[in-house]
């Protein structure tokens, strides 16, 4: 057997085809991310933006770099990072956002798993219909769907009135659903559920059913068949779903803004506040960097735990 022969064109074709997406990521992800890191060490401009490093010399009309080896302290600073650690409110807000995103991910997983299983085990026609139904919400605008939840959860809605009527029978005070942490979690789960269902379904669909038959023949009960066969095989789908739900949920600001009460702020709202309300780009950049770092740290811990787990086996 000889190795498959690729022509010269073949080797370049690989790069040629992937050049546009690579270039796109470089231009619109890597470079902006670097700009953000640089911005975190600079001072905010009076009206947003940053204190300029380059200015036009009024005498010569030429553009000049203001930054020199002597005066760099006027332009670069660690102060923005210091601010993050000088008050515990920022760390607390990070923890709260992680808690919201984690809870959302867990609820999504618990809801999506049986649903994905059902879809994967349905006949072809039913399966296509069910997948279509999962994707269907994407056809309407995200904000409109969140506004619909404002109406559903509002105190005047049938849902709230029936629920509170029911609670009233047991002498429980009526609860207010809208503008609460509960409403934020409902909104987060609702928006992210399809992102858990789709990768799980893609994974579960490929499972070899004869493995389950074999397990049954060897005397495994339903729970053992799930826990020893299906669950370990589905882990790649679970991890993909967890990443697709957890990371966007962590940075969400629109849902806490619309559905949240006075105590539902998340880290995304704080970052938005820096860039809009306070026009403080450097501190906003610091918060964004911290968010990225904490997600990376979490992923690293998960990967490390995963590799240890494998070694034990």
């Amino acid at each position: 057997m000889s190795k498959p022969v690729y022509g010269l064109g073949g080797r370049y074709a690989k790069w040629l085809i992937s050049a546009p997406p690579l270039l796109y990521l470089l231009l619109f992800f890597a470079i902006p991310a670097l700009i953000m890191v640089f911005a975190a060490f600079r001072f905010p401009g009076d009206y947003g933006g940053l204190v300029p490093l380059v200015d036009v010399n009024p005498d010569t009309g030429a553009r000049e770099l203001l930054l020199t080896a002597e005066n760099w302290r006027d332009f670069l600073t660690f102060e923005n990072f210091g601010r993050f650690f000088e008050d515990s409110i920022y760390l607390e807000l990070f923890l709260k956002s992680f808690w919201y995103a984690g809870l959302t991910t867990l609820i999504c997983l618990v809801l999506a798993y049986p649903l994905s299983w059902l879809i994967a085990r349905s006949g072809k026609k039913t399966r296509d219909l069910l997948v279509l139904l999962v994707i269907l919400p994407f056809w309407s605008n995200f904000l409109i769907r969140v506004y619909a939840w404002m109406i559903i959860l509002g105190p005047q809605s049938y849902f709230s009135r029936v629920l509170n009527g029911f609670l009233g029978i047991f002498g429980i005070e009526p609860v207010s659903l809208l503008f609460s942490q509960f409403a934020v979690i409902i909104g987060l789960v609702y928006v992210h559920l399809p992102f858990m269902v789709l990768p799980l379904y893609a994974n579960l669909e490929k499972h070899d059913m004869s493995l389950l038959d074999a397990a049954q023949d060897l005397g495994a009960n339903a729970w053992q068949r799930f826990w020893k066969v299906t669950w370990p095989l589905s882990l790649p789908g679970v991890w993909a779903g967890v990443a697709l739900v957890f990371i966007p949920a962590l940075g969400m600001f629109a849902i806490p803004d619309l559905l949240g009460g006075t105590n539902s702020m998340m880290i995304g709202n704080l970052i938005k506040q820096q860039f809009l309300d306070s026009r403080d780009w450097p501190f906003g950049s610091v918060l964004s960097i911290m968010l990225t770092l904490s997600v990376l740290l979490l992923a690293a811990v998960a990967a490390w735990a995963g590799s240890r787990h494998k070694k034990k086996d």
Partner: protein
Amino acid sequence: MKKLLLALMMTMGAAHAADTLHVYNWNNYIAPETVKRFEADCKCKVVQDYYGSMEEMLAKLSAGAKGYDVVVPTGFAIPPLVKQNLVQPLDKAKLPNAKNVNPAFLNSQFDKGNQYSLPYSFTTTLLGYNETELKKLGIDPTSWAVIFDPKVLAKIKGKVTVLDDSRELFAAALMYNGFSANSVNPDEWKKAAETIKAAKPFWAAFNTQSYIKELTVGNIWVAHGYSNDMFQAQQDAKAAKRAFALNYSLQKEGNTLSVDNMMVLKNAPRPDLALKFVNFMLDGKNSADLTNMIGSGNPNSAAAAFVKPEIKAIAAVFPNAEAQKKLQQLNALEGKQLRELNKLWTQVKTAR
């Protein structure tokens, strides 16, 4: 032939751009009928884009947004636009209607001599409320105590929203404590932050986007917001024949006044149409339309004759001399002060 095609394309392109004015304005701040009349008048098309806060508008324009001709900022947003060189001086020779503006609204601290801006209309920031429910509870809405005093709030827990706007909410809390809305004294700010923290557990939400709707359907009984929005909510509730009545009033401790102004952007594609629009909106009748349809306050002397009498009677829209004394326009905050307020605001919003 090629030249002919090119010329044709150029004129087509020019004709396309020739007739479009891009207005960047507050949402709910111009009547559709007024836009239609201007379009007929200038034989052009008006394309509108909206913002919900000054910060949003400033952030977008500072970041270099292009294509807008006219922008309508509140007073304190004028200096940032001027200092960043984003706007151009107004050519008064092309604005004969500028003479209609009430002199009391000219020559403000934000633009001495009105080199860059002319007033469009104004709003007050106040409390809108469910009159029926507050009467039942015997709550007087003419004091900021309704949203800040825990004793009063205990009766309406979960039925109050306040603006998700650091400047406006701090101004209200400062005035409730007897300080100036424009105070930059750290101790007074701290006191205001304490007031907000103590009241926060009783509020339903910080809300800038949907309080009109929440008031109108009866979910919320007291909302901190802008007078023209309260006007809208009241009209909507009447139109929907609700079992309750909405109303709004100024607070005895004082309110903030937002005078919104028309400015022409430096990189405006069509400064000529922009000036036409500014002049059109300064016409007495057109300016009165704004008040009649959206309930905004009117800085135009020539408009008075066209404003509906029932609107003239609303104290929050046409404050009398005594009420006017208690109205304050917010100053522009810069650098350190803005950062300090931001820190307090984050503390207030994350406090349990």
